[in-house]
């Protein structure tokens, strides 16, 4: 088991390096000058040159990449071009907010998804299954920024029940475990939960239905085992597939949806990414992409390890 963990950890290194290289070069391939956000277009040549020098952007790209990577490894993601704040501080704040939103959306989406999936699998082919499947397909297909806008129009503008934007009254620093703050979470979390709900429903339905019809379940039934204990066996066998999917979905949620967070002005990583793109704030952009990508890598690793605990066959493969 230890060697499996070690091997999986080793794989992370080349993946992380490739991720860093890709995110650095993609950002620099995008059109526009990296200092557009800070230098007015009619700035004299010498001012442009001086500022480019001051930000270290006059050096060859390879050198810039090397020094960026060197500092990133030590946990220093540089300083935002636009604000001068350390990138890491901005990312930490945003990650906290996104984690909150992602967790709420995951609880909602995974909870409803598993429930619907199991119900559909048990009643496969029947009207309950069709309804559950229809809900799942709607969840996956609906453009979630549109859904967000719709929810805002209904619940904020017309009914005036819930706030339309922001993370808490007076900013996310004032967030607390009370209804006054939780109100802000409702609409974005519901919006974000739709896609994982749909995907988890479909995955659970397929996995559970398949196992329910497998021979060992029939054997268990024939042995006269109670349905609660059968359910335990079914759950254990379906878990690896479902966990893999939920892990990926949670990764997506953690990435923070640019669209949903922008629609709700939710100060998370998606919103931060949006700001960085609009301001062409390259250090911030690189930092956010790198951290999110590493989250994905880490989450995949975690899911792999959990799967191998649940199903020892994977370790041997």
């Amino acid at each position, binding site marked *: 088991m230890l060697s499996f963990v070690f091997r999986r950890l080793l794989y992370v290194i080349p993946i992380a390096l490739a991720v860093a290289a890709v995110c650095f070069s993609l950002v620099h391939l995008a059109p526009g000058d990296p200092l557009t956000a800070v230098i*007015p277009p009619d*700035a004299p*040549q010498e001012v442009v040159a001086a500022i480019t020098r001051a930000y270290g952007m006059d050096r060859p790209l390879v050198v810039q990449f090397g020094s960026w990577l060197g500092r990133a490894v030590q946990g220093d993601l540089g300083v935002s071009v636009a604000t001068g704040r350390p990138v890491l501080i901005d990312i930490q704040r945003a990650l906290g907010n996104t984690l909150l939103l992602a967790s709420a959306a995951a609880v909602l989406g995974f909870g409803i998804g598993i429930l619907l999936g199991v119900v559909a699998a048990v009643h496969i082919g029947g009207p309950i299954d069709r309804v559950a499947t229809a809900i799942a397909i709607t969840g996956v297909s609906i453009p979630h920024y549109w859904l967000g806008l719709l929810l805002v129009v209904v619940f904020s503008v017309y009914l005036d029940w819930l706030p*339309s934007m922001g993370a808490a009254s007076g900013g996310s620093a004032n967030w607390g475990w009370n209804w006054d703050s939780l109100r802000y979470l409702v609409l974005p979390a519901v919006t974000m939960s739709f896609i994982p709900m749909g995907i988890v429903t479909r995955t659970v339905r397929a996995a559970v239905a398949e196992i329910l019809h497998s021979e060992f379940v029939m054997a268990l039934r024939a042995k006269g085992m109670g349905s609660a204990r059968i359910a335990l066996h079914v759950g254990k066998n379906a878990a690896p597939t479902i966990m893999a999917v939920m892990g990926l979905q949670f990764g997506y949620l953690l990435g923070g949806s640019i669209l949903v967070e922008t629609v709700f002005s939710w100060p998370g990583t998606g919103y931060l990414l949006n700001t960085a793109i609009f301001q062409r704030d390259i250090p911030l952009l690189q930092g956010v992409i790198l951290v999110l990508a590493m989250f994905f890598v880490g989450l995949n690793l975690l899911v792999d390890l959990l799967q191998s605990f649940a199903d020892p066959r994977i370790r041997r493969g």
Partner: protein
Amino acid sequence: MRSSSHHSGAAVAESDSVRTPPFLRLVAAGLLILMMPLAATANGGTIRIGMTASDIPLTSGAPNSGFEGVRFTGMTLYDALVSWDLSQADQPAPLVPQLAESWSVSEEDPRVWTFNLRQGVEFHDGSPFNADAVVFNFDKVFDEASPQFDARQAAQVVARLPAYESIRKVDEYTVEITTKTPDSMLINQLPFMFFSSPAHWEALGRDWGAFEQDPSGTGPFRLSSLEPREQAVLVPNANYWDESRMAQAERIVLVPIPEATTRANALLSGQVDWIENPPADTLPMLESRGFQITSNGYPHLWPWQFSFLEDSPWLDRNVRHAANLAVNREEIQVLLAGNMVPAQGLLLPGDPAFGNPDFTIEYDPEQAMALLAESGFGPDNPVEATILISTSGSGQMQPQEMNELIQQQLSQVGIEVEFEVLVWESLFDNWRQGAEHSGSRGAHATNITFATHDPFAAIIRFLDTNSAPPNSLNWGYYSNSEVDALIADLRETFDAEENLSVYRQLHEAIVEDAPYLFVGHDTGPRAMAPGVAGFVQAQSWFQDLTPVHMAD
């Protein structure tokens, strides 16, 4: 969030009063009551403003986020030597003295300007504003060797003060600024130079990052708290020097909401009281629900900037005039739900420098066709041109729809245009590269909007022969000796009346030569809750927040 130094000042005052004899306290209280209408004039209320920026603009004295930054964290927290009078809606905002009470230009050496500073002005931290503070701030952005040099502030300010060369303290309340060449336009550039407190910067350990969280200027508002990307809270500066501009609201909360629909929803659901630039299609609905919509033309131009390279059809003045006569600006105004002032030149029609050009820009397709025929063009031989456009971008209004409508209108007189659509960032970067650059893809005009609040911004950077790439933004390599001579004349004319007269001639010459397709000026719509009172929308990129408050 405020510095402890500020509170400690209040604490000292309180402990003093404990030792004061009772009758003196009574007298003091009486005096305070008498002074109240002067000092604490706040009518009250909190105004929450949804900005289009995606972050709180920098607060240390050189805001980013373009003119929106200058509007919200520049002119609120800070003052300049000279600024605009934004109290009137019916004329383009004129320049007025602010921290400088008066100034003069040396007759022996017209590069040297003497500024007499206002006395008795204090920064928010209580330290005095004086000549040392002025020199400190110019060095902050212009002198890389000074300890207070800040590259981020320099990036915002230096390009806006191209005339500046050096500064010298003459005495406690007098400074001398020298320009690179004799240049009357220094005065137009000074509103962008704000003054941060040197004492407060020292107190914060010479750290501009800390100053950002806890700034100190001389402006009518103080920063009470700052949550990056979420909100900034401004409160009145009770010691502001200009009694006619005491802040009336108790708090102004700035909230960045870059997404236009989210901004409108935030207003509709009562989370903000005021939004900048609401989406055009929400205006009728907002109005019908009782929200106030304000708008006013301001110094902004939506043009096509023509190329004057050899292959450009716009080299022929008849063709330029014909295009200007073929555009039906009223149709475009309808397309924009009224949110455009039809252009009759580079400047707003009511600008004192507009003048009386011989060429009248109006919709006259017959005249356009006659001019084209004169130059040998006709239905069988149309003018053909390619235009660089974007589908979005800061200040671009609704570029795609507007360009497509113009394309149809021009086609009716025999001018056939095609578009090269670029990403906004690429279009913007190409502005400086010029028409000759491969990034221009051989296009004959570019469609980028700009500010026209002073002669440099409106004209010199685009139309002076010396502004050709890579020096500045004369994208099309326009060169006109009459315009160049008038620009030179304008730079060296220091008398305000005469200066205006030269500026007027310059504008007339430009309208007559038509190096642009002049289309329209934006009107900067804003939407506000019914309770917001006191706002006067000036004909400017900038607005005064001091009279704004919540009506009872």
